[in-house]
């Protein structure tokens, strides 16, 4: 006699919700979201309009600048960040090769997307991280949200974003930001919480107001961690450009998508490697910059 025969019916077959009920439930939620979209779509689009204009303006700026000037500007930025001549030369060669292989415009579009989304992530992420560090309760609310943002498959949140905003630059940007913002929030929070208690007590003893303490003690000392967060955010934004191209973010990502759809091996490889190249430049520059910020803690002698 098997175990199954000994047990009552409801322990063998999962007591599912009725098929019709389930369909109604899904339909109901979809329907109400659609209604919400129809009623508020315009307002939401208007809300994001300035961001869209900024995005368009920035992309045009990058595309409109003559390529030699653009390479010069980028090399200058690399120099300012990393102070390393090798990295400047490496960046220049990488950009020249990318241009020579016909990927200049797509690279500029991707650069625009990644820059703007990083900017948005920092602008939202750092204040949220600060807020989190100030209250355990806020932290308890935000941590699970960040967990969801990092683990939920990107395609899932593409659906509501698409329904609300359609295909275009802004939905792409939002998708990238949802995926890329958690590290900067987490590491801002962590960095502030890790600041030495003795130093904080000294700030209190000398009469620092909460704001002075944040600006003059906590944030400066959290900077190395905070910067590691920004670095991770940039990397994750670059990793998202292919997925974002599904909902209309043009650039290297959309070329990769095209290559997948048509099995163009070389096209895929070339654009993929271009993304990798940008990632390496961003990563090394931001890491070097972060290291320079904490120069004070390196030389130790007793």
């Amino acid at each position: 006699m098997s175990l199954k025969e000994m047990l009552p019916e409801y322990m063998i077959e999962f007591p599912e919700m009725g098929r019709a009920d389930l369909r109604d439930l899904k339909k109901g939620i979809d329907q109400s979201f659609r209604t919400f979209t129809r009623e508020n779509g315009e307002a939401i689009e208007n809300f994001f309009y300035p961001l869209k204009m900024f995005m368009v303006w920035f992309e045009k700026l990058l595309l409109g600048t003559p390529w030699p000037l653009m390479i010069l500007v980028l090399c200058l930025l690399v120099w300012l960040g990393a102070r390393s001549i090798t990295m400047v030369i490496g960046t220049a060669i990488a950009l020249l090769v990318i241009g020579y292989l016909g990927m200049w415009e797509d690279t500029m579009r991707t650069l625009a997307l990644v820059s703007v989304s990083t900017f948005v992530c920092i602008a939202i992420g750092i204040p949220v991280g600060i807020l989190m560090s100030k209250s355990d309760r806020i932290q308890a609310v935000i941590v699970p949200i960040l967990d969801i943002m990092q683990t939920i498959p990107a395609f899932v949140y593409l659906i509501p974003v698409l329904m609300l905003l359609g295909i275009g630059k802004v939905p792409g940007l939002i998708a990238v930001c949802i995926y890329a913002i958690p590290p900067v929030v987490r590491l801002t929070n962590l960095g502030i919480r890790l600041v030495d208690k003795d130093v904080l007590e000294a700030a209190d003893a000398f009469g620092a107001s909460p704001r002075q303490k944040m600006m003059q003690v906590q944030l400066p000392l959290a900077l190395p961690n905070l910067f590691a967060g920004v670095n991770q955010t940039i990397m994750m934004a670059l990793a998202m450009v292919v997925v974002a191209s599904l909902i209309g973010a043009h650039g290297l990502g959309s070329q990769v998508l095209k290559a997948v759809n048509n099995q163009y091996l070389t096209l895929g490889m070339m654009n993929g490697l271009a993304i990798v190249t940008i990632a390496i430049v961003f990563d090394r520059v931001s890491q070097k910059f972060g290291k320079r910020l904490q120069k004070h803690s390196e030389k130790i002698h007793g």
Partner: protein
Amino acid sequence: MADNSIEVKGLYKIFGPHGEKYIQMVKDGMSKDELNAKYGHVLGLKDINIKMPSAKIQVIMGLSGSGKSTMIRHINRLIEPTVGEVIYQGQDICKMSKSDLLAFRRHKTAMVFQKFALLPHRTVINNTLFGIELQGVARAEAEERARHWLSRVGLDGFEDNYPNQLSGGMQQRVGLARALTNDADILLMDEAFSALDPLIRMDMQTILLELQDELHKTIVFITHDLDEALRLGDRIAILRDGEVIQQGTGQDIVLNPADEYIADFVKEVNRGRVIKVDTIMSPTAPAASLQIPTGSSLEFAAKKLTDSDISEAAITDTSGTPIGGITMKAVIDAMVTPATH
């Protein structure tokens, strides 16, 4: 001169989420262990009453866990008391509003910490002017004042170094300069020299005493080292398990230890340096050729007597008038630890 004395009255601190609930039990005699075992609360301070004199160094001494660091943090309210008062210039610090407290901390107190607590991302000069920067002093003036105090503690030329580049002793000089730059009437020093090695500690004590000679601040100095306490303290309070078990001048404590615990402590003390000639002098001034000023230590008197190879000296007050006399025998008697201790 303004009165900068601080009076601590009936101060209790019970650590834990509901400290105030157990105050009555502690007042009724519940012990620290019992409170911890039964209710999971820790008795930090119990009925502290100390009058800290203006412009003097008040030392609070005790071993670790005696509550001395908790005590000093009540003076600038880094720790909230469970009940009790800390009175300064007629005001109870424990009842100050947030903004008053902030102003009090900025202008009236400055603190030096055991682990220095310098800001690692700021240079020495920027650390030193941290306090007055918070006060809102303009940059140029702040820098000038900071430079002055850095030079006073012997750190000329290190202005642009980072704390990590300095040795422990030098870092604590920065800590001291930072506190002095604040120009506050009250200086709180929480085991300020404990982390330094013995020679540098002596050095820092000397610097502090020299500065105090001209600054006359009310200094509250925490230490676990009796020699340090006796050297620095105009008055000493000894804490054990959160209670004051004796307070008075160093000499009082060495001559009349309140209990076995303190007697054990003072046994090893160099009495010649602590006890003053005034304590043992006879009221009649001898017609001796040697004169020793009032307030001198026995060690000093003994040296004077041996140097001039006589056995009697007159004690004179500050104007040079004889007020009493001592003999070599009395000096040596008092310097030798009594057998009863």
